[in-house]
């Protein structure tokens, strides 16, 4: 079952319209689009600009500023691995090297089977129980490469 809907401009326009009444609607719209489609398609930029009376440059600038928003589809699942100091103190650097090697990808890469994309993140607030990760929205404490592999097998099913 695909987690995300294929890009559709009319569907996007509908999502945008649901949010235009908000003060500072840009980020809520971008989050809603990414949640639906898995990324923010370039086709959404003029739609948002029109709806919020912004220039396309402003919308594009906003999308590119934030680490969360991506311009292209990612894997079916997103794994965020914490690279910040508290996890470094628990040996995350060598763990991450091992994980990326096992998956055969680099940071921001997607596995060949399209199952997951791995992204770096700076702090998940699980700092006394590192190394920490988020698989989609599920937190994982005391992460090991084996535990991640098992979790990824579980979500694949």
């Amino acid at each position, binding site marked *: 079952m695909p987690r995300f809907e294929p890009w559709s401009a009319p569907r996007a326009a509908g999502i945008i319209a649901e949010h235009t009444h908000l003060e500072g609607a840009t980020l809520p719209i971008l*989050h809603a689009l990414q949640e639906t489609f898995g990324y923010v398609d370039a086709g959404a930029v003029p739609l948002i600009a029109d709806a919020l009376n912004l220039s396309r440059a402003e919308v594009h600038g906003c999308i590119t*500023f934030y680490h*969360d928003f991506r311009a292209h589809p990612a894997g079916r699942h997103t794994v965020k691995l914490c690279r910040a100091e508290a996890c470094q103190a628990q040996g995350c650097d060598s763990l991450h090297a091992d994980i990326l090697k096992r998956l055969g990808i680099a940071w921001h890469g997607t596995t060949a089977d399209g199952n997951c994309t791995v992204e770096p993140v700076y702090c*998940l607030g699980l700092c*006394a129980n*590192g190394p920490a990760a988020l698989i989609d929205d599920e937190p994982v404490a005391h992460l090991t490469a084996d535990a991640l592999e098992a979790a990824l097998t579980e979500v694949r099913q």
Partner: protein
Amino acid sequence: MSVTITVPRDAVALGLGANKVARALFAGAERRGLDVAVKRTGSRGLFWLEPMVEVETPEGRIAYGPVKLEDVDALLDGGLTTGGDHPLRLGDPEKIPFLARQQRLTFHRCGVVDPVSVEDYRAHGGYRGLEAALKLDAEGIVAQVRDSGLRGRGGAGFPAGIKWNTVMLAKADQKYVVCNADEGDSGTFADRMMMEGDPFNLIEGMTIAGVATGATRGYIYLRSEYPQAYQTLKEAIANGVKAGVLGENILGSGKSFHLEVRLGAGAYICGEETSLLESLEGRRGIVRAKPPIPALKGFLGKPTLVNNVMTFTAVPWILEHGAKAYADYGMGRSLGTLPIQLAGNIAQGGLIEVAFGITIREVIEQFGGGTRSGRPVRAVQVGGPLGAYFPDELLDTPLDYEAMAAKKGLVGHGGIVVFDDTVDMAKQARFAFEFCAAESCGKCTPCRIGATRGVETMDKVISGIRSEANLKLVEDLCEVMTDGSLCAMGGLTPMPVMSAITHFPEDFRPAGSLPVAAE
């Protein structure tokens, strides 16, 4: 009668399997014909014991932990529902020394109550602060906050009462209260724990701020890395509106306060208040030059009170018990309690709320129980990624804004990250620049360019290319960034770098090199 068993839904507990434990408890109890209600709470912050399960018995709560999925059957067979014996039995959770030694003013409900229940919140003393506030006029509320000595807990330590007063006095058709819940510092999780475990404390604190300043709208700007906190806050706000503690005519006072939670999008810089406001307005999170200060010209150009989660959540207690009771805790000009977060390589990490003035060593030794790896402590970073690395000699520094500043460090948001003797401090210094390069908003040159040049120059130092000259260059660069940056991102990145160079010089000599004198 049904026995209540509590299982935390805090992200740490979930990360250690709490949902599976909760399901197994429920199913296992059903199989055995036991009448059990599983209640989900936040965490008490004893993170090495998570998932920590508690049973309500006639003698009070009995805790067990850390409970793994495979322990559940043995626990149920061993009489868990009556507080029976088991190797994981911890007894009365409030008597566990880690918790018993604390002074929990702000966190006393966290891990105890159902986080999204207004009823449970009120049953544990909730909304007494707001009720007290509603009996005062605006000046009276602000005076309580001022006299408590409360200082902004986000890191800067600015007196909260002055900010509140400025917004209260500002004239505008609309004012705002904004909570900075963009807790991005590594080693900190107090905000997350509070929002997941006792969100109504934050909601009540913000409501009091709204009543005091005349702001009828509020926003919680939450980092997107906290999906559990987001769900809990949304649920709590919806329940608050239903119960009449949010929205129109709060508690029948005729005053209104509308609250909304907004998600950030992975930008550390948005923890800086002006950058946060830009982001909340829907733009790139670029730092604004001050003045004008947000208290006069903030969200959408209107007077805006921006405080951290820990600042707002201190307020209900202050209003309930009075400013003086709060100011009786602490030392010097750092009054009240500080929620310390003990993290990194530590045997017993978690949330430690105590009066200001405890030393770093006391926290690590009395609460932390040494490193998780069992190796000696070598460096301790206090106050997040922009905080200093302290060596053993400085660990007797008390956690107090002025005392930490005197040692060229900072309290920050109260995070303490412990490293053992395998840490490479040159690598940590390089990382501080790398982090700044990744997270700089790009508005000012010292930060935008300095961070990248810092990474490059540190690489040269590490690989032994004219190490000594390049280390001088790093020091020079740090001076420029400290003096010339617009905000704390570029201005404080030199703090971890310089503290590493100053306190751990041996790590900055290239491998195999000899001291100059030996040549």
